[in-house]
């Protein structure tokens, strides 16, 4: 079985897995990193959203062989460390606005939100309702209203 190596939440790791296994299962089933959730494995629900080199992506739809040794994968577990704090400002905002209900979608929601804010910033602007309308993450508990408030608040605290 091939060995794959990449950077996961700040640490270089290696793992034995068949090439085609999607990263979500490598993380969850082989490495025990369960923050990214399985909601569809069809690149639709976005509950598996994590970051690769700082950008949001769906771990359910990437084969582990496509992750290179220098790629940095960040899951919700590793998000606070990216800002050197116990909690990322977006997580703080999620707590402040008491966003979660069952919580199943929320790791993916937070990871998507952080990337969306960064994307807007790169374009030199603040996050807008139109940006938020582009988020495809499902929340079957219907927490959308609070998600929107929290993303805006978290964006402010993320700084420039």
């Amino acid at each position, binding site marked *: 079985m091939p060995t794959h190596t990449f950077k996961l939440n700040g640490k270089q790791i290696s793992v034995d*897995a*068949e090439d*085609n*296994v*999607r*990263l*979500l*299962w*490598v993380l969850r*089933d082989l490495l025990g990193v*369960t*923050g*990214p*959730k*399985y*909601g*569809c*494995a*069809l*690149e*639709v*629900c976005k509950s598996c959203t994590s970051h*690769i080199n700082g*950008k949001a*992506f*769906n*771990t*359910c*739809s*990437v*084969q582990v062989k*496509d992750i290179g040794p220098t790629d940095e994968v960040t899951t*919700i577990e590793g998000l606070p460390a990216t800002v050197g704090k116990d*909690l990322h400002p977006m*997580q703080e905002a*999620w*707590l402040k606005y*008491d966003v*979660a*209900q*069952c*919580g*199943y*979608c*929320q*790791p993916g929601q937070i990871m998507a939100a952080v*990337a969306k804010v960064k*994307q807007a910033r790169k374009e030199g602007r603040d996050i807008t309702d139109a940006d*938020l309308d*582009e988020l*495809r993450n*499902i*929340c*079957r*508990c*219907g*927490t*959308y*209203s609070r*998600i929107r408030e929290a993303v805006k608040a978290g964006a402010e605290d993320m700084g420039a």
Partner: protein
Amino acid sequence: MAEHRRSLDRPTDQPTGGRGLLGRRRVLGYLIAAPTLAVGVSWIANESDPRPADAAVPSLPQPVDIFDLGDLQNLAAAPTSGLITVELKTDGTAFFAVPRAEVGQGITTAFAMMVAEELDLPMDKVEIGLADARPELLMNQLTGGSNSMRSMYLPVRTAAAIARQRLVDTAAAHWGVAAGKVTTKAGVLSGPGGRTATYGSLAEAAASATTITVSAELKSPSEFSVLGRPRNRVDGHDIVTGRKQFAMDLQVPGAKPTMVARPPTINGTLKSINNLAALRAMPGISDVVGITHGVAIRGDTFGQCIDAIQKVDATWGPGTVDDESDATVLAKLRAAQLPMAVPPVLSQTIDAEFVFAFASNSPLEPDCAIADVRPDSAEIWSSLKVPIVAQEDIAKQLGLPIDAVKVHVVQGGGSFGRHLFHDVAAEAAEISQKMGKPVKLSWSRTDNFRQGRTHPMSTSRVRVNYLAGNVLSYEQRHTSVQTDFGHGLGEMITAFAADLPVGGNLSFAETIFELTQSSPYNFGVTTQLLNEVPLKFNTGSMRNIYSPNVVCAEELVVDRLAAKMGQDPVRFRRNFLKDKRLLAVLNKAAEVGQWGKAMPKGTAQGVGVHSEYRAAVATLVEIDCRPETVGRPVEGEAVTGPRVTKAVIVVDPGFCINPRGLEAQMIGGLQDAIALALTSSLHIKDGIPLEGSWDNYFYTREWNTPLDVEVVIMPNTSDSPSGAGELAVAPAFAAVACAYARATGTMPTYFPINHGTLGFKPLPVQPSTPQSPTDGLDHTF
């Protein structure tokens, strides 16, 4: 059952018999013989909700007016509430195991608040766990019908109050002072002379050597400092850090990922596997066995199970509804509609029929259960709302005595009625037994939509006779594909049948219908009846069972009536509503939502009202049906359509335990309602739903959600809480439908309104779970 009479009009701000909002009440419980302080409660919540008889009303009270589903569950819970316990540990924390399922509705937070309040303990010192299946709790361990708050509010507080009293008595004895001189605050006891002791330091001393009956006083609401104040969820931190564990996240030794290749029609069966050896030889696959409804595959990763599903060559037997499609089901429903009783004579008549498509109960977390079945015992982990029934059934299925089966309740990633059923846990047990190994079974997303539980298709026919400004009769005939209640409510009803105010030989579903439905209007002769067609779909009572469809139909007809009588919809409702609490929420919603303001053409307001679970809600929405909005571009597969741009939800919950949590439930219910009205349904074709992913089943998404949502919680009108988990769906569904009708000038009669056009390309029916994409890196942002 006089004490169960329900009147929303009750002047509830008056203390009843020295109790109620102002008085303290004395309650009884047990000190249980244990190493540290432990309290059990035998006091029953029956008397908590004394409601005087209704004033005479022109429409006779329907059964739900005097006794509703929550009352039934309270009644059923009564004999066993005594087994609910609060334990104090030496580290000063109080532990309370909730005999309920937490699936996102916030009950753990609410229970922690109750314990913190009566025990004078900080919230972070209250630990709430989910209880395993406890057969002795009987039906008290059923989470559904939004009854958790109603049936548990007093027993839980009582247990905490008794624990506090015992600590006070213990400290007083130690210090040689009168108990009245000892006070409690934030987990610390204080006495004369500056003496203090932490709860933890007295946990052992306060323990009782024998089980004895004691009493304590509950705080009166005016003394509350926790209950009624907004609190964030107790599990918020675990959730945002990814630490909250759902069934799939649990590491049970040897329980490897397992999935099932399923037949091409609902409930199809497996006849043979034609390539068993090839499947077993696939990379990462450890076991393949045939089971009743498919081919179970166990491997190192779920991904490899999905790979193997692609290769399954099996022969399938028929399912239970192979010949059914939307049109055939609708024809059967129409054939089964009960006749109206009042003929349209000498009056004007409105006749209307509404159709509601099948909807999916699926939460976001795919169904998951872990099972470790050994020759003489079994252990199950899953999110189960009725774990006792699961335990019983699984024991029977495995051929084991009940006490050899241990059932652990795991937090669920949503439920919406799904976790009332334990079919997934039972299937995991079947697989584990056949493989002789522990398994972590997950249904795939596609399995959930195609083989999972659905809210059944139904029709609602309404006939109203009116004359000279009066409504003479209101008749509603609801006809539904049979709803499966085979999860414990059935036993509850049978056990307490004699106590119910619905007479005769009503079927089980009819009983539920009678206990949950009632028209809030003075419409003369009023009858609402249910008939069911026994088709073998996998159905279940989705969030709020019948109410969303029944209320939506009723409110659309009310709007039409108002128009015929030349009245504005809000004014019309004001004239005909029976009770003051509904009137109050309606008036508030009209005021906050600026009812009647000028709106551009193609946009409109709509309003809906509903009372259930001893609460009253009015919802006012604004909808935008202009072509540029309906056709707004969203990248990728997406349904846009009309957009609800604003919503005001006004709720009178009786007593509000946690405004933050209540508001969350209202917002969630609103999003469900928008989906049911505009976008989400299952299309049945040749015995299976076409929907297979969230881009087919269009639950509300960010681009459908209103930008402006306001929830107004009315001042408390009672001292007991009402159910909240499902409350918002029906009135919001009605409001959206009514707004749509006003914006477009056409009353919608088929829901969701987009059901007629298939907005996606269906995934193939076989393989039953599609392969995952590989292009994720092309879509980063």
